[in-house]
């Protein structure tokens, strides 16, 4: 299974359980950008949850063997344990609308046997433009070039269909 090359069995179990528990979450950040074709590297997979208090998250963690470490000081809540070490919790996407609003700007990708929502690249860019951390500023030119390349490809892919239609 291709998913096994990326996620461990426990990580897959966690994602699958989130799906089973109907937890509202989506992939954001560099991993989401990479899924859409951005030539970027990332150490982790950012998960934006609509409601971190959703009991389904605790159920998924319990079933897959992970835990959530609550926030303290300046540190946001984090996941801990082999099942979830690849995933980072995102509480707020700076510069964007609410989770419910932004879900309209997402699409579903099947990662092996799990369906996950992925935030559109233009919204990832909008968030990085708003937060403007040094690491965001570094990657922004790459993401913008990717978005323009995707627009070009979309336009090009649409063009031959019109021509074929005219011929037929």
């Amino acid at each position, binding site marked *: 299974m291709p998913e096994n090359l990326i996620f461990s069995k426990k990580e897959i179990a966690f994602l699958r359980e989130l799906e089973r528990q109907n937890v509202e979450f989506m992939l954001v950040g560099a991993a989401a950008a*990479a899924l859409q074709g951005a*030539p970027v*590297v990332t150490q982790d997979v950012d998960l934006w949850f609509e409601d971190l208090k959703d009991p389904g998250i605790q159920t998924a963690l319990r079933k897959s063997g992970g835990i959530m470490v609550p926030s303290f000081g300046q540190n946001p809540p984090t996941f801990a344990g082999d099942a979830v070490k690849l995933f980072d919790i995102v509480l707020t996407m700076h510069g964007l609308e609410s989770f419910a609003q932004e879900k309209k700007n997402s699409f579903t990708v099947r990662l092996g046997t799990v369906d996950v929502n992925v935030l559109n690249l233009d919204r990832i860019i909008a968030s990085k433009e708003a937060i403007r951390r040094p690491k965001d500023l570094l990657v922004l*030119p790459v993401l913008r070039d990717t978005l*323009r390349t995707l627009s070009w490809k979309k336009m090009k892919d649409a063009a031959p269909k019109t021509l074929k239609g005219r011929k037929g």
Partner: protein
Amino acid sequence: MRLSGDNIKKLCGVRNLSLNALLKRAGVSKTAYYHLIDKESVLPRSIDALAAALDVRPFALLEEADRQSRRAIRILEATERIVARDPSMDRDNVRHTLLLLQEKPIERLRRSLLRARKPDL
């Protein structure tokens, strides 16, 4: 199968490379290059013999490599067209994006995570 000087010039063109620059980068001397260009066939005799025994052109045995080459040229040409429309774009970003778009999303993510873990890849 002959080496195509025209194809080489075309590939140089989309990369903004002169032939001299290409030869220097490849570590191929001008003598060696023009020797290859002049050869009736650049393939080992055994390949020609296999093709002859199968009653096909050597090209038929090299289809996969040829297909990959055509695909690479198409990506380079697309890169040139995109950058020509917007010169502020980085050519490498465009080319890498086009390459990644040929992969499935999960494969793109795999590459992204793998390269972060093994930056020397």
